[in-house]
């Protein structure tokens, strides 16, 4: 088995004053396999961006070590930078340069110049739908286009690791799908991709391996499938009736749902139970009302994420306020 692309050991990063330190990253340990798409997920303030900043040499760790392709980010930052491409969370483009020069300048920083690079720039601009604005200064373009330029730059070089912090913000659905396909192709070709995102469906679709962190600490780790197993037996049931049966509340209450939302003639349920019991409920509801549409799905990554990140904060650590499980509204008629 090949050595991991990234090894993070006991990483600590503290902000704030000496009297009131805030541990943004708190003894975090993980590794990222080569050629994988690794998702670093967590709620706002969980420590994702700080961890990413340390891995990309933008911030120094307060404790612990981070090795990128065998190079320590503190002892050999230049060697690390030679092997990574980074899309930071904020928009980052040279506003006073045109689109083409943005791509060429980025490539030049990585030691790439000349006709082949210019040809590659044309191809990348076409892929990202920015070829028609190639000669326009980025300051004259919209935020979405600027983000495209920022992400497009990563396809100008062949560094082994790409870090993407919220890469899809400002992208329309079509472009996002296209970029995701390109990222998958890059990973298949051996590139390691590390991404953070708030859009969990994106992570679910892209990532081979996911680390969920909260309060700077590891909460869960594994493939999407593994993570779903952690919350176990969770099902989402959506039923549309021709009209809501009067006995609905009574029938549903017997199955102890975790969440019930009724809107017009559609009911959405979240249940933690075995599949036969779910089917039994559907069958019972079918006897009291005419079902027009039925959909049963397992837990989404979002469900897993919400469940896993709602653990209480360790004492002495500041945490962002989170919605508690009990805060969820139940909209069962008469509730």
């Amino acid at each position: 088995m090949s050595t991991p692309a990234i090894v993070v050991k006991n990483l600590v990063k503290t902000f704030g004053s000496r009297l009131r330190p805030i541990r943004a990253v708190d003894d975090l340990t993980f590794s990222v396999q080569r050629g994988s798409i690794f998702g670093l997920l967590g709620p706002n303030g969980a420590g994702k961006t700080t961890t990413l900043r340390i891995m990309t040499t933008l911030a120094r760790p307060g404790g612990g070590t981070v090795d990128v392709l065998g190079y320590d980010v503190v002892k050999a930052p230049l060697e690390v930078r030679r092997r990574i491409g980074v899309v930071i969370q904020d928009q980052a483009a040279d506003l006073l340069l045109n689109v083409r020069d943005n791509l060429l300048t980025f490539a030049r920083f990585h030691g790439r110049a000349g006709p082949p690079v210019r040809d590659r720039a044309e191809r990348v601009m076409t892929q990202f739908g920015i070829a028609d604005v190639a000669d326009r200064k980025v300051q004259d373009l919209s935020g979405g286009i600027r983000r495209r330029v920022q992400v497009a730059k990563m396809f100008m070089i062949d560094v082994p690791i790409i870090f993407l912090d919220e890469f899809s913000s400002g992208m329309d659905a079509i472009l996002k799908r296209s970029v995701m396909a390109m990222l998958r192709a890059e990973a298949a070709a051996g590139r390691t991709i590390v991404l953070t995102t708030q859009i969990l469906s994106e992570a679910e679709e892209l990532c081979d391996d996911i680390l969920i962190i909260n309060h700077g600490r590891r909460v869960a780790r594994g493939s999407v499938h593994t993570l779903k197993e952690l919350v176990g037996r969770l099902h989402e049931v959506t039923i549309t009736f021709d009209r809501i049966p009067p006995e609905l509340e009574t029938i549903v209450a017997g199955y102890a749902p975790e969440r019930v939302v009724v809107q017009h003639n559609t009911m959405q349920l979240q249940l933690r139970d075995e599949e036969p019991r779910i089917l039994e409920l559907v069958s019972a509801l079918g006897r009291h009302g005419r079902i027009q549409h039925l959909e049963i799905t397992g837990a989404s990554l979002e469900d897993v994420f919400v469940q896993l990140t709602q653990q209480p904060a360790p004492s002495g650590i500041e945490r962002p306020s989170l919605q508690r499980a009990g805060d969820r509204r139940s909209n069962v008629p008469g509730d």
Partner: protein
Amino acid sequence: MMTYPLAAVLVREAKIRATNSLFIFWDLVYPLGYLLVFGIGVNASLGFTSGLAGVDYNAFFLAGVLGMASFGIASNTSWSFFLDRDNGIFYEMLTYPMRRWEHLLGKVLFNTLVGLVQALLTIVLATALLRIPVRFDRLPLLVAATLVGTAGWFFFYAIFALRIRRNDAYNTVTSVFYFVFLFASSMFYPLDPLPRVFRIAAFANPITWQIDVLRYATIGVGDAVSITVEAIAFILFSAVAFAAAIRALRDAG
């Protein structure tokens, strides 16, 4: 040999400045305007003399304009750190494969060339239009003083540009610097007739050291020993500013 990151920063700066006419105006034209409007105005209208035998005000002020251009170009270049930070590209660039000193040096390298072009334009204008007797035999010293001067002031300004987060605060700092450094110096007038406190402040001002060297290089005013001391002092000032600027850049990310 120039490293490719250094070359990349240089090309980037060149593209940004060469394709934006406002930069060209501030870097190249503005100091010439000072020489023509202020220099000729004072010389002709007020009959002002430099106080030095055989040196009219235009000739005296020539080194002041060259120093002002260095100072202004350095200030504009350091402000580009703010522009980069606002655009987000500053932090992305810190992840590029280059050392911090390459980032800093690359940024100023193109601008020292701009400073040199500006200085040569000023000399041509001064010779052709104002008939100032420029010492062309000391041109190498003028080139060196312009290059080191522009770089030194950029490193000095970069410390503040990298430490200060707010654009308005930085603009206030540069405005104060502009006033204090330029007026408490030998840029606009000879120092000898000034009150003692003023003179001490001016002699402690690095721009006085640079302008005295430039004045020696352009019209031959000053003695070689004191000019050498001032030149060494300015080089030391630049070296300290460079070290402090690198530290500020390392702390930035």
